């Protein structure tokens, strides 16, 4: 393990399977151990690389607790390009980049024009010329980070694209689950809600199955159908089948406007059939933890009592979010 007490030497550490996670400091040469320029989705990461991300995030979390000053990104300019309203993810990335010594700029993107597909590439090109080296991109359209990565010579970190992917969320969820369960190998994880429109769910399917878990999906048919042949994924007709003996349960935020699309007749019926409470969780493993990417609609997809209970890891997810984003930024900057 890395000697976190000694922050002044360059350390190379073989992770599981031989991926070298390096931790260069300012007076040591940088390693070239991380093979990826961008983080577009977790599907690009091998299991060893996933584990390496989680390990580095653990170290980041510890160093942050000790209020250590880190300068892995000194000289870097991290641009936050949030073309869709977001507070939690943006703040988490901002704290992570600042904790690593980067200069952070918030990019003035007109949400209405970007969602019309008018100016993403132009905007990013302009920013690249002004010195931004890494762009944290949140976008309403699936695939937008791929366009950005092809068009502009900066590192792209996908902070959520449409219904497609939210890789740092999946990594922090995987870390939270690994901490709680020891390992994900052979574990049963249930995800409940609108899987079809969820970038969080998709990235979690990649990450959790890659780490050895089986994932059970439950929700209204229009929201869970289509995932049946995803390796390691099961679509349950009934919520209790997904929850039975589950080692952990994740529920997703219900987008209130989606009920109009024919997914469910009403929020009331959603809550009656798929809302999580302590009684429904009785069929899961004793004490199985509950996760939620936030922000929650308490009383809709999860009861307020359950969200505030000891089983809830919602607060831990937020803490892990900053550490994981620090780890990702540090790895990409190598």
């Amino acid at each position, binding site marked *: 393990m890395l000697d976190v007490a000694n922050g002044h030497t360059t350390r190379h550490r073989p992770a599981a399977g031989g991926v070298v996670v390096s931790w260069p400091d300012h007076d040591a040469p940088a390693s070239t151990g991380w093979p990826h320029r961008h983080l577009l989705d977790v599907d690009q990461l091998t299991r060893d690389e996933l584990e390496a991300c989680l390990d580095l995030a653990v170290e980041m979390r510890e160093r942050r607790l000790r209020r250590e000053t880190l300068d892995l990104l000194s000289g870097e300019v991290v641009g936050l390009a949030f073309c869709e309203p977001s507070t939690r993810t943006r703040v988490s990335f901002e704290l992570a980049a600042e904790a690593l010594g980067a200069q952070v700029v918030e990019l003035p993107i007109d949400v209405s024009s970007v969602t019309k597909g008018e100016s993403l*590439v132009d905007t990013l090109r302009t920013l690249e010329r002004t010195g931004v080296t890494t762009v944290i991109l949140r976008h309403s359209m699936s695939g937008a980070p791929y366009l950005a990565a092809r068009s502009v010579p900066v590192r792209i970190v996908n902070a959520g694209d449409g219904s497609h992917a939210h890789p740092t969320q999946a990594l922090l969820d995987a870390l939270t689950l690994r901490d709680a369960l020891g390992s994900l190998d052979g574990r049963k994880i249930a995800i409940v809600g609108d899987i079809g429109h969820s970038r969080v769910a998709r990235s979690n399917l990649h990450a959790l199955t890659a780490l050895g878990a089986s994932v059970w999906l439950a929700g209204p048919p229009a929201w869970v159908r289509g995932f049946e042949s995803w390796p390691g994924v099961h679509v349950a007709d009934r919520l209790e089948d997904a929850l039975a003996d589950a080692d952990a349960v994740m529920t997703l935020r219900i987008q209130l406007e989606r009920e109009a699309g024919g997914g469910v007749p009403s929020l009331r019926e959603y809550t009656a059939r798929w809302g999580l409470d302590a009684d429904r969780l009785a069929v899961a493993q004793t004490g199985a933890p509950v996760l939620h990417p936030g922000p929650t609609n308490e009383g809709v997809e999860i009861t307020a009592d359950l969200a505030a209970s000891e089983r809830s890891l919602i607060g831990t997810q937020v803490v892990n979010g900053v550490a994981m984003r620090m780890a990702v930024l540090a790895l990409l900057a190598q």
Partner: protein
Amino acid sequence: MSSFGSLGDPAATFVLRGARVIDPSTDGDAIRDLAVVDGQLADPAGAPSDAPRLDGRGLVVGPGLCDLHVHLREPGMERAETVESGARAAAHGGFTTICAMPNTEPPLDEPARVAMVLDRARNRACRVRVIAAATRGREGERITEIGELAAMGIAGVSDDGSAVASARVARGLLAYLAPLGLPLIEHAEDPALATGSVMRAGETATRLGLAGWPASAELSIVERDIALAAETGGWVHFTHLSTAGGLDAIRRAKERGIHVTCDVTPHHLALTDAWVAGWRGFAWDEPTGVGADPFGAPLDAALAYDPACRVNPPLSPRTEALALLAGVADGTIDAIATDHAPHPRERKGVEFGAAAPGMIGLETALSIGLAAVQAGSLDLGRLLAALGTRPGELIGERRTLEAGSVADLVIFDPAATWRVEASGLASASSNTPLLGMELPGVVRMTVAGGRITYRDGLDATA
């Protein structure tokens, strides 16, 4: 060196020696000499002694190709294509007739606008026929002045870009068209099922988090229009068919004797929905990577979500592309039509979901077809029938390679290959995911109405 001619050029005279001449109109397929004298096909033995002799060995001669579905963007989007540039692209691809769709800005929904395009089409590198709008403003409510338009020689009517959404209007159109002998060319897409979708529903769309267009969006309009055609005696032609279900419905309707015809694009035969995820291989190739494993395989960041693959109707799953190919092979599908849809760079260099749908196809259609032939999925004679003879018949043009007819043909080298590059395309646009690919089949000469409209080499020999 390649060069373009036009229909205003002097009539051609030459003798092509030793080429494989395929004429689907007579089921002819023989290696022989072929003579063109003053623009007419003639007996080579009687050709003038000073007629240029061209070496046709290794080359194939087929009927001039006929495209039932092309967007020329004039008027309104001349940066993307004009009648002139589109006609050249057609000649480069071996086409001698193209049918221009009416969804221009403004649309071709009244006689004066149709006349304007016909005027611009005079003496270009191919014949340009016009398909007029089916309803005013393509709004799906009031039908256009079809009688007057028919007298101007339109090839049919269509609100392409959308279906005629109202069954009542579609029924009225078919009834009005029936005695005129012209088709309603239907873009079969039920807006209630398809609006908001950017690719075909299925595993790839689920993987990519893109809203999916269910196959039922096509089938519901196909079934509706078949019922309306049966009732009215009208002729419905389904263009750019993209689903196996729609194909089955058409096959059954044809068996019942209902006046139904259809076409399919080269990209719906050869490309699949996995192209949106970045797979690059034809439908008849064994899929690998994300083409074989839509959920498990990592996306290729350089190719995933390529806006060049955004097209409407969206690319089909592999099994359906193969079903469509079988439909061409057995003749259920009458024609291959390109839906050549040029777009300027700024409408394609954006997020996948924001990109204008469509890809160009005039210059690659024959090559895509030849790739299917080389793979053993299609017979060469059947390909040339679907690209030339049969679509020609549907718009009242007879294509034959018999002596005495006006020469209207394509001469190509099926063994040669070429690389698709923007600089090598005659179209004003280059929006195709085939850029950079090496394709079989190089057109050496196109002859339309007895005039050489395109020529690449094929110089006279001693």
